[in-house]
């Protein structure tokens, strides 16, 4: 998903927008941006600084800077939860654990190349189950027991689930099992950071109450979720952009290093 957060000079949010889902829409960064600008009643020329983050950050030609989602999420979360020491971000492409001290990122881990343990895992399996991603959480709350999922790979988990459905395992039990599988994988990974509270859970998957519960259970700790978990990365990027712009201004340097235009990146070569 592509998200935009526009801040004013004081750090107040002027506009926040979540664009369409799916990696194929990543090329529409300029459209989402245009929408966000329209909502805030702003022109692109009024924007002082643009920071792009996320997996597709290199595909945003109109950004001043590209900063990784690691740093941006840390920044965004710390601005919302100043006491945070461990942040967990589960998005569509990857899952991360962030160790934060005094609002600054000091260490991190990321999942390794595998779709299991990320939002993709749920996205793929939601297709298999014929459900919508936003109903998973509710469904899982009805589970009486959790189906243990043994496959680590999404493709094989899919086959496993189909077999269980055929055997009559109730849907909520399967969904709850999936949430557990994600929580287990992610917790296993972030254990490397030596988890300390407060723990904040962000990223699209944090909207899923089932995964939130599963995480709390696996961690044995309370987990806070921001009101808009999808936006913490963009928020952090905006905050960092603001700092960079202010710093440049204070130093009397030009804010932009190059001229920016709200262009669509050239994705598909026209034949």
């Amino acid at each position, binding site marked *: 998903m592509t998200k935009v957060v526009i801040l004013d000079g004081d750090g107040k949010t002027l506009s926040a927008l979540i664009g369409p889902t799916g990696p194929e829409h990543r090329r529409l960064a300029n459209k989402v941006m245009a929408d966000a600008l329209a909502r805030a009643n702003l022109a692109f020329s009024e924007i002082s600084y643009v920071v792009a983050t996320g*997996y597709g950050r290199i595909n945003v030609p109109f950004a001043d800077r590209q*900063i*990784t*989602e*690691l*740093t941006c999420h840390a920044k965004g979360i710390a601005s919302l939860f100043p006491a945070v020491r461990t942040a967990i971000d589960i998005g569509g492409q*990857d899952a991360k654990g962030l160790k934060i001290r005094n609002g600054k*990122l*000091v*260490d*991190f881990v*990321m999942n*390794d*190349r595998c779709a299991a343990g990320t939002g993709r895992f749920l996205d793929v399996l939601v297709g298999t189950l014929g459900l919508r991603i936003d109903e998973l959480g509710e469904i899982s709350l009805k589970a009486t027991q959790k189906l243990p999922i043994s496959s680590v790979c999404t493709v094989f988990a899919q086959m496993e689930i189909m077999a269980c459905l055929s055997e009559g395992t109730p849907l909520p039990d399967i969904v709850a099992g999936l949430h557990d599988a994600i929580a287990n994988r992610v917790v296993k990974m972030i254990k490397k950071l030596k988890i300390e509270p407060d723990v904040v859970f962000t990223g699209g998957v944090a909207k899923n109450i089932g995964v939130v519960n599963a995480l709390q259970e696996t961690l044995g700790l309370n987990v806070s979720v921001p009101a808009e978990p999808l936006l913490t990365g963009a928020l952090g990027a905006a905050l960092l952009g603001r700092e960079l712009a202010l710093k440049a201004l204070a130093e009397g340097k030009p804010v932009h290093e190059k001229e920016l235009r709200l262009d669509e990146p050239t994705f598909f070569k026209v034949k």
Partner: protein
Amino acid sequence: MTVKEKKGLVRAKELYQDRSQRAKELKAEGKKVMGYFCLYPVLEIFTAFDIVPFRILGDMGEPITKADSCLPTIVCPFIRSALDLGLKGRYDFFDGVVMCHSCEVGEKAAHIWRIYMDPSYYHFLDTPHTVHAPAQQQFKGQLEDYQKTLEAFTGKKLSAGKLQEAVATCNKQRVLVRELYDLRKSDPPLISGTEIIEVMVALMSIPVAEGSDLLQQVISEVKERTDGPQKKPHRLLLWGTVIDNTALVEMIENVGANVVMDDTCVGSRAYFPMVEPTDNPLDGLSRRYLVDIKCPRTFHEAAYGDTKKDYIKDLEYRFGYLKDFAKEWNADGVILQSIRYCDIHGYDTPGLQDYLNHIGLPNIYIEHDYSEGALAPLRTRVQGFLELIG
């Protein structure tokens, strides 16, 4: 400019891109070219026999296909790739190969190489695991055997004098490599990490003396040029498994750091240790190769024969040289990289990270599949690491 006249970095890049061109030329002139795997097949012995030593490397840009019919896919992809190139005939110009017990899979690949490619000369060096005195003795004995089989193959007798000369030739190259590495100490470094890999791979593809000439050209060129690497916010030390391709370093250097020092076996690990001239050159050689090459494949420890164990002391003994590297080359971070399925380096990383944390040097561990296309996900990690160290 004709091909022959290309010099310095341009020449190195050319050799990097087409490794076999010079070896094939030399072969056409009647020289023997021999492939060797890993660092342990002693270069001095090739050189003394006037054989062109050619390090067997892989190709990160080429999908592995043929090797799958003789090695499973869950082993070191570098070895699989190297074997794959062999099976595809890329190394057909070799007159022979010298293999060694680098690691478990390296050893098996060596035997497989012989079974499937049946080179006209083949020798397997059983590098011991420890550096104890009997192990050195054992290794020396193996070098004697190796020399003997080469004598039989070439029909030439090798004199101690010839070997001593070769020791000098190789040591000279090592001094030059150090000199080149010294040019990475300034900020910005005079030569980039990417270029270093090109030069090192080139050196491993031509005779040692020619390599020294190339090094001399590169050194004077680099000293004088004005379009060298830019100053960047970070200076990194790169540790880990073999890196014979520029893609990874290029990626790192593109996200805001200069790679200013390395400890890999296509870099300082291969060239920094010198050979001490000894009456019987094989004494100095077995010592240098077995003991002084600090590759984690060999069991190095501080406490041999000691009944006590002190973890930090042991780490200091095993990894202390990295502290010196970081200091001398002024690195502010270390990237530990390992090819997936490398047990040798895998077991060492937590300890090495303990050590680096102990001395306060920021570090990150990344694992990759020895494949150019698979590097993208690592970019975020490296960039995040750089942002984190500030």
